[in-house]
């Protein structure tokens, strides 16, 4: 297995772990962490696959996309955290209501 | 190996030894204060030795300056953070290990 494939598969794994946690964890802070892990997985797949250029330097286009992605991810995280704090102040909880149990 | 390697390699290897010693302390020491003690010593000296080794190998004064600057920053940040964590732990009443 090449280095690129290895890291791309790890990226897939991170994406799946994050997606699963996003579904099954009720706590909102944990959902925010899960979304961050998911985006890290996507970035890792992009960068690993960008390195399949053989001996020359990696493809810069995915690199540029990942850099913008990292900055967008942190601003979305900040906004999501404030939303979570507002929900916690209003309802006293850090979860959304679980409609399955009702 | 060039002559400068005979100086650089022992420095680099002993630097890594300090890191290994530090992580042994991190694993084995009984409380947060002793672990802090082990780490701040070993990491600062370890990084210092490795930086010294890399300085010997460096090919320009710019690189030497940057390496030393990084080491100074780590020293400053490490010492300050160690102080803040210790003070915080004592204020919060984390007990010290006694024999």
């Amino acid at each position: 297995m090449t280095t690129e494939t290895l890291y791309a598969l790890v990226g897939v794994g991170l994406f799946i772990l994050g997606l699963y946690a996003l579904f099954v964890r009720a706590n909102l802070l944990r959902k925010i962490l899960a979304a961050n892990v998911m985006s890290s997985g996507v970035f890792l797949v992009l960068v690993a696959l960008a390195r399949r250029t053989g001996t020359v330097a990696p493809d810069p286009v995915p690199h540029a996309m990942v850099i913008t992605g990292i900055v967008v991810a942190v601003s979305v995280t900040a906004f999501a955290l404030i939303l979570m704090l507002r929900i916690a102040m209003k309802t006293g909880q850090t979860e959304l209501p679980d409609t399955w149990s009702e | 190996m060039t002559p400068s390697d005979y100086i650089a390699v022992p420095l680099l290897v002993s630097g890594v030894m300090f890191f290994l010693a530090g992580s042994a302390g991190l694993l084995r020491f009984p409380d947060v204060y002793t672990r802090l003690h082990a780490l701040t010593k070993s990491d600062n000296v370890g990084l210092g030795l490795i930086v010294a080794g890399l300085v010997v190998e460096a090919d320009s004064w710019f690189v030497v300056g940057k390496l030393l600057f990084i080491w100074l920053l780590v020293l400053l940040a490490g010492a300050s953070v160690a102080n803040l964590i210790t003070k915080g732990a004592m204020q919060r009443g984390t007990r010290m290990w006694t024999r």
Partner: protein
Amino acid sequence: MQTLHFILALLLFLTLGAGLWRAVVGPTAADRMLAVQVFGTTAVTITLLFAQAFGNAALRDVALMFAVLAAVTAVAFVRRAWSEVGVDDDSE
């Protein structure tokens, strides 16, 4: 020499495992933060060794960044999550 640098970096990478273990088991929040601090210093060192091994001078800038930003996170921990209102500590 390239191989030697890489193997030394690999050894340092193994010491990260010790830091990770401490970050996971604690027992106090201070222990965890301490582990992350070590993580930062070790990452600085690994990056510097990589810079030398692969002749990539730009990696030294990454090391510089590691050195400064690890301190900012640690300060955020001490000043926010660990302020006297406090987040649960020693509870395991």
